């Protein structure tokens, strides 16, 4: 930054209003000169002499003009620009300091921006529809024994609060919709995974089945073509049309307008594409990701049949979500009351309710963010991450404040004060400098945040099912970053600026020349360093807890061999593989997969372990009566005959399943040790019989006992469980496959596809992954927390290192004299070195004690996020403290050595 730039700016300034001021001043001067000339002439001078005399008396007009111009520009520009220029010069003069400050700020601000943008989009982003704030989601709530039994959708239930659910039966929806007064149109929808074949490639898609008034209710118009309309849902099975998402349009159709009218196969049914959704539209249930396609709900019996009856006529199965816009002038409470009574009427009108059962009441919830059922799962992690990054930012601020103090700005300020600078002006100058630093850090941080905005969603999603998810980077995020940047600039700039401006003119000039004793003034800087050490301790202890949680989780033995196990799913649609056909299909696929070279063993299973899925089924040993007050169901898995051998799950007693177990033979089951202990204490369960509540099963005989294993999640102890062979079933639907093989999933995939294509070219292989990847994905939260907090911890240590080094180097430099005298009076260099190290140890001690105390208070809040350790885990806390101590001593080693190396004579002569 040099004066040409300033001149350029003042020239720009001239363009605005300076011209006028200049010509006015010219007029003023001319008038003055004329008046003077006239005066001299009236005293008898000749016109020439009078003119010359007037000019002499007035002085040099050009210099005056110049002065005025500069004075005017400086008034408007110069102070700010001078400050900025000076600030830049100061920063450029100490590039090391500037680099450390900008990089640490950029990292801290970038981290804050990233976490904020993710938290914002997960917790606050609205649906991309006009007037989203009018939207309401309908829920029902019931206590005791609810009349609703069969459900498909989000469901909350606890003994105290009763159950809460956002799904309704289609007949109930029709009645509510027909009698609706308090809301604008009520529309219904439900998401389901389907198999789509587009251009001959079969893959799985997320589809949303919607009522005909869905698009008009949301007030969304397609980008291309037409929406799903009420005319599409005239009767069950009508409306073989789909509207596709912009994402699919781009991926599979290259944004070609000729997409309209093309036919795709959805669960084996041909469907015509009639429209493309606008960019950013994500459907009604979620503001993050969009379903891939939308189809009329009346297609459910054709495309996604469940049970034997069409769900559209089924009053006992509740599965559609309902949303609508509230009418202007109607309060939520009024609408709730009206809808509740209508819901009761609809339930009575469509279902048979037993006297002991309760009828649900209606609840209205904000629908502007869709059905944010999982929101609470994100709240705490988002809050914890925001806090962690906040600490990092605070740490970066403390670091810069400390470095600014230590840079000895104070002495320079005293000189400036002595030369007549105003205190306010100095305060402004220093603040400008910190804001400059903050701005540089903020710009780089914003860039980092922008680049990193999708990192966290990617870390949180399954690697084999990466739905493209974009965190919106909008003005709110920008505003947040800008605010944070300015706040940090003020935060780390204010203290040094205040101290500098408060300095007495003489004091620091005198002091720096004459002080020989220990300085008492450095307390501000030292307090900041102690604070830094405390924050670092907190972050390091936090990182330690999350890391140990992750390791504890990883070292859990799931009970079966997880290595070299490849998983995938095959979901034959009921429309193609009717009852019995699906069992035959799985039977054949199991054999064909086993024949692939490199595959050692194959089994199928309805549940993949450590996959967060579970099913349970009634388990009533023969002779035990039904007891409503007791939980009589147990976890359950339906498996292939090779299951135990493939997974390496040992059979403790009895036999595994074999080829003799068929549809027509005696139904058999294997129970695990926990179930044996729980339901058959002191009895040998083998040969015992039980019923599952399913009449088709009849009495099932227990033929073996297997070892325990972790079921849905590594965190929970191995539960009681029983297993039955799928081959004895008349209908199974989709199954997961588990292959023991030394091949990688990518090497295996082509062979797998070839096998499946031979059977049915429209059948996709879904989610090919290894068991280890599956387990890793169940630890995503832990891994994200461990890696982020470890990163923050390392950053914190680095900053603390810089801070402690800075302050100790500063202290030593200031005490050169004193140290010189000590050495001259006979102190050993080792003693001097120890003296410096002792001082930093004190600082470290104070910081670490504070940090540990804070950590003990705060980590309690993350207790629910830890596994296998307590928040006050002694090794972690002690380890964190030890790391800090080592880091502090290492960082002060160099200044200590320098102190010990002071030459007494030189130090004394120096001043």
């Amino acid at each position, binding site marked *: 930054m040099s004066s040409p730039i300033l001149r350029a700016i003042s020239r720009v300034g001239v363009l605005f209003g300076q011209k006028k001021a200049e010509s006015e001043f010219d007029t*003023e001067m001319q008038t003055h000169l004329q008046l003077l000339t006239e005066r001299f002439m009236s005293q008898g001078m000749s016109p020439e002499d009078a003119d010359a005399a007037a000019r002499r008396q007035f*002085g040099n007009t050009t210099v005056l003009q110049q002065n005025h111009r500069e004075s005017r520009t400086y008034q408007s520009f110069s102070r700010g620009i001078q400050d900025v220029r000076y600030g830049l010069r100061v920063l450029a003069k100490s590039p090391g300091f500037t680099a450390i400050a900008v990089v640490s700020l950029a990292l801290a601000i970038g981290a804050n921006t990233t976490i904020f943008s993710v938290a914002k989009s997960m917790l606050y982003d609205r649906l991309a529809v006009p007037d989203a704030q009018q939207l309401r989601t309908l829920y029902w709530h019931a206590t005791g024994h609810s009349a609703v039994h069969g459900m498909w959708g989000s469901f909350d239930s606890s003994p105290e609060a009763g159950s809460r659910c956002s799904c309704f039966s289609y007949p109930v929806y029709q009645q509510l919709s027909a009698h609706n007064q308090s809301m604008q149109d009520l529309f219904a929808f439900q998401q389901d995974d389907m198999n789509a074949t587009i251009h001959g490639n079969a893959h799985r898609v997320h589809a949303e089945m919607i009522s005909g008034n869905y698009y008009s209710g949301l007030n969304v118009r397609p980008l291309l073509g037409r929406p799903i309309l009420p005319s599409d849902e005239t009767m069950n099975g009508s409306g073989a049309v789909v509207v596709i998402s912009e994402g699919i349009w781009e991926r599979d159709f290259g944004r070609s307008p000729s997409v309209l009218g093309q036919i795709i196969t959805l669960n084996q049914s041909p469907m015509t594409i009639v429209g493309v959704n606008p960019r950013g539209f994500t459907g009604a249930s979620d503001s993050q990701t969009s379903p891939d396609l939308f189809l009329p709900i009346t297609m459910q019996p054709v495309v996604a049949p469940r049970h034997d009856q069409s769900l559209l006529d089924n009053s006992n199965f509740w599965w559609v979500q309902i949303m609508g816009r509230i009418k202007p002038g109607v309060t939520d409470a009024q609408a709730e009351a009206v809808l509740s009574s209508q819901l009761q009427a609809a339930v009575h009108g469509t279902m048979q309710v037993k006297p002991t059962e309760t009828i649900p009441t209606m609840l209205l919830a904000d629908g502007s963010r869709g059905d944010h059922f999982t929101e609470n799962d994100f709240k705490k992690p988002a809050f914890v991450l925001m806090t962690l990054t906040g600490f990092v930012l605070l740490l970066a601020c403390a670091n810069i404040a400390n470095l600014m103090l230590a840079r000895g700005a104070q002495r320079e300020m005293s000189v400036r004060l002595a030369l007549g600078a105003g205190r306010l002006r100095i305060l402004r100058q220093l603040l400008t400098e910190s804001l400059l630093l903050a701005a540089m850090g903020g710009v780089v941080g914003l860039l980092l945040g922008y680049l990193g905005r999708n990192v966290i969603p990617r870390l949180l999603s399954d690697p084999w099912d990466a739905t493209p998810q974009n965190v919106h980077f909008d003005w709110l995020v920008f505003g947040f970053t800008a605010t944070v940047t300015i706040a940090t600039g003020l935060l780390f700039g204010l203290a040094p600026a205040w101290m500098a401006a408060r300095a007495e003119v003489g004091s620091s000039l005198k002091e720096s020349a004459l002080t020989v004793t220990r300085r008492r003034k450095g307390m501000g800087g030292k307090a900041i360093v102690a604070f830094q050490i405390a924050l670092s301790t907190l972050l390091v202890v936090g990182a330690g807890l999350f890391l140990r949680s992750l390791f504890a989780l990883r070292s859990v033995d799931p009970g079966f061999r997880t290595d070299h196990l490849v998983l995938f799913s095959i979901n034959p649609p009921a429309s193609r593989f009717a009852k019995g056909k699906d069992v035959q299909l799985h039977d054949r696929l199991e054999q064909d997969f086993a024949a692939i070279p490199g595959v050692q063993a194959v089994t199928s299973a309805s549940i993949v372990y450590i996959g967060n899925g579970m099913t349970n089924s009634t388990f009533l040993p023969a002779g035990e009566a039904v007891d409503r007050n007791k939980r009589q169901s147990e976890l359950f898995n339906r498996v292939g005959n090779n299951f135990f051998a493939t997974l390496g799950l040992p059979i403790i007693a009895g036999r595994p399943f074999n080829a003799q177990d068929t549809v027509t033979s005696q139904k058999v089951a294997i129970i695990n040790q926990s179930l044996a202990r729980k339901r058959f204490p002191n009895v040998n369960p083998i040969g015992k019989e039980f019923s599952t509540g399913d009449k088709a099963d009849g009495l099932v005989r227990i033929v073996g006992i297997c070892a325990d294993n972790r079921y849905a999640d590594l965190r929970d102890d191995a539960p009681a469980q029983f297993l039955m062979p799928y081959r004895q079933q008349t209908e199974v639907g989709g199954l997961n496959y588990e292959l023991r093989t030394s091949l990688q999933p990518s090497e295996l995939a082509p062979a797998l596809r070839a096998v499946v294509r031979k059977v049915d070219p429209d059948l996709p292989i879904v989610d090919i992954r290894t068991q280890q990847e599956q387990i890793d994905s169940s630890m995503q939260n832990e891994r994200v927390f461990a890696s982020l907090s470890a990163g923050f911890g390392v950053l914190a240590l680095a900053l603390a290192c810089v801070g402690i080094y800075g302050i100790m180097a500063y202290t030593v430099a200031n005490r050169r004299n004193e140290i010189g005298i000590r050495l001259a009076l006979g102190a050993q260099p080792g003693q001097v070195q120890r003296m410096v190290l002792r001082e930093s140890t004190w600082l470290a001690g104070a910081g670490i004690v504070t940090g540990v105390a804070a950590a003990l208070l705060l980590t309690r809040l993350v207790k629910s996020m830890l596994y296998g350790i307590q928040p006050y885990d002694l090794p972690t806390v002690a380890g964190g403290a030890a790391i800090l101590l080592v880091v502090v001593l290492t960082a002060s080693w160099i200044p200590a050595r320098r102190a010990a190396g002071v030459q007494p004579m030189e130090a004394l002569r120096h001043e």
Partner: protein
Amino acid sequence: MNPDKSEVLQGTLDLMILKTLHALGPLHGFGIARRIEQVSEDVLTLNEGTVYTSLLRLKQQGWIDSKWGTSENNRKARFYSITKRGQKQLTVETENWERISGVIGRVLRLEGGKQQ
């Protein structure tokens, strides 16, 4: 230069202009220069251009205000007047000046006495 004449002390011109405007009301630059010339009884030499530098400075401080008007002989001229803040400043500066000049006067008399 005439040995009887003194240069205007740095900073005192502002004070003189403020006082002039306070005493005489709105004046243009030429008028201010004449008034100072008259009051100083030709003791002070003044580059009259510097009056304008001083006026600009005072204006930027908000102590005076200016307005375009017509002078006695029908010329367009800018008239300066003192503001409220300017009057306050004048009081402060006047007190300061009196205190300092008093001290300097006492000091000078004192030293003179010792020598005699």
